[in-house]
């Protein structure tokens, strides 16, 4: 009796999990299939589940055609997301540490100010930010793509939370060993907060990799565009590029996905560690 009940529960559990997994995996698979098909065939009814009538034409067009600078977009996304993430980690951990551990006048008000920027929707500051970047002469440059994305309030918040719960003894013993203020940060704190830096890195990188509106507005040169901007721009007037859009979309996340597969534990551990402290 009891065993039966558990058996049914387990079946229900796996049905739920499999259905939801299907809801995630099947659309991605369909995108993959479509990416090999000619544009005119992408919307067939019933949908194709296997790319047996497809070829690599869309991919060849992306890499070797003259229409899209796909390789360059990819490189730009990599440079922008990579550098932005690196800088964010450094800048936010410094600030997060100060807010968690150090005393200085204006600390609370500054922290509140920073946190409140999280509530300001990005759309609100989009235009003024553009005007500032233009005044600085940073349009169509990596500087303009990277620097404004570095001040992540979420990053400061997350790292402050994390550092706050670290045992104070660590720093105190380091101080006794003659470690200076910066030494404490770079030699004690920075290494310890590795896991939460990992969380921040993953989300900042992923978020930046997918960011659309900011790069759309500040890049006018096709050579400086990032992947999302390029893909969004592929829907050109009077020409039909859906097959190529599917291929570009697929390529835009598959590298990240492969990295994730290899470092799966790290990714999930990272999120786990960060969330527990947050």
């Amino acid at each position, binding site marked *: 009796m009891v065993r039966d009940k558990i058996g049914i529960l387990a079946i229900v559990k796996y049905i739920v999990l499999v259905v939801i997994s299907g809801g995630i*995996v099947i659309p991605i698979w369909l995108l993959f299939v479509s990416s090999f098909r000619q544009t005119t065939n992408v*919307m067939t009814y019933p949908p194709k589940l296997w790319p047996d009538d497809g070829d690599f034409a869309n991919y060849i067009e992306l890499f070797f055609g003259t229409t899209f600078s796909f390789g360059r977009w990819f490189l730009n996304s990599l440079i922008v997301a990579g550098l932005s993430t690196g800088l964010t980690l450094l800048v936010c951990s410094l600030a997060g*540490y100060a807010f968690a551990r150090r005393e*200085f006048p204006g600390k609370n008000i500054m922290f509140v100010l920073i946190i409140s920027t999280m*509530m300001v929707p990005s759309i609100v500051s989009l235009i003024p930010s553009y005007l500032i970047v233009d005044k600085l002469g940073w349009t169509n440059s990596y500087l303009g793509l990277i620097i404004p994305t570095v001040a992540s309030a979420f990053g400061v918040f997350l790292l402050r939370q994390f550092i706050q719960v670290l045992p104070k003894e660590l720093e105190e013993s380091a101080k006794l060993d003659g470690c200076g203020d910066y030494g404490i940060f770079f030699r004690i704190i920075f290494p310890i907060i590795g896991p939460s830096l990992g969380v921040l890195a993953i989300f900042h990188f992923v978020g930046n990799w*997918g960011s*659309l509106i900011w790069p759309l507005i500040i890049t006018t040169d096709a050579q400086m565009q990032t992947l999302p901007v390029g893909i969004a721009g592929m829907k050109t007037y009077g020409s039909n590029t859906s097959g190529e859009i599917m291929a570009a979309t697929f390529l835009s996340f598959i590298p990240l996905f492969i990295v994730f597969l290899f470092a*799966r534990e790290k990714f999930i551990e990272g999120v786990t560690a960060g969330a527990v402290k947050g």
Partner: protein
Amino acid sequence: MNARLKSQLISYSFILPYMLIAVVFAFLPFLIVIMLSFYQGTLLDLNNLKFVGLDNFKKVFMNADLYLSAFYNSLFYAIVIIPVGQITALTLALLIRRKSRTNAIFETVFFSPIIISMTAAGVILAYVLDKMGPLNYLLALFGIPEINWFGDKIMSKLGVGILEIWKGATFYTFIYIAALRNIPADYLDAAKIDGVTWWQEIWHILLPLIKNAILLGVVMTTIFMFQIYDSIYILTGGGPLRGSESIAFLIYRVTLLDDQIGLGAALSILFLLFVLLISFIQMKLLKSETEY
């Protein structure tokens, strides 16, 4: 120099890099928006802005019917996406809370939407939800008439909701898994000895123990849901008939498409006040919750 001052200076040096960037790209734009809300003009000619006092705000209230629908849509998004997303996330977390080889496979699957960008997720779901797309085909197999996701104000909002949940909900799953796995084993062992049912275990033991994580998840998703805009831009463009416009999308349209920066700035300010109000209410509620 006294030690305290020195220590304070060092403290400032820690926050200086962040503050430098934040001042230029977060606080300054905010001040510019406030300023712009009292002016009228076009993006193209910012040197000739006209001071109009509170005219922009007056315009918003006088033509409120042009803007209210975006407000209702935003509420709709919050009311639908937050509970559905959070319940899905929590359910999944409870189902795969134990570390195991099978669960690792599900973890991998549930993590993938987190990595996929909104642009890519939008392309994928636009294809799936298409009238001639796979979802309608599937529904037809079960005899359900086809759904036109982009031709109806309600359905298109639900479409945006599906995109947001598809792309975003499993993020919270991992927050909850983390919290669940962090529960000290003795709590659970004690429960086992007491012979509680699975339902009692979830309801009386697990959920109360991860209450803080749930509160965090709800606060985060609320902040995000009122800001949604990318998903709308990619999936519906705000349509049909502006039926899926959120407040953020409305501001984008008024500022950039209609080129009414003053009006857009005024809407931004009102939007911001609203978001602050929501956050304030939420914090009050959370406080009374935790006291209890």
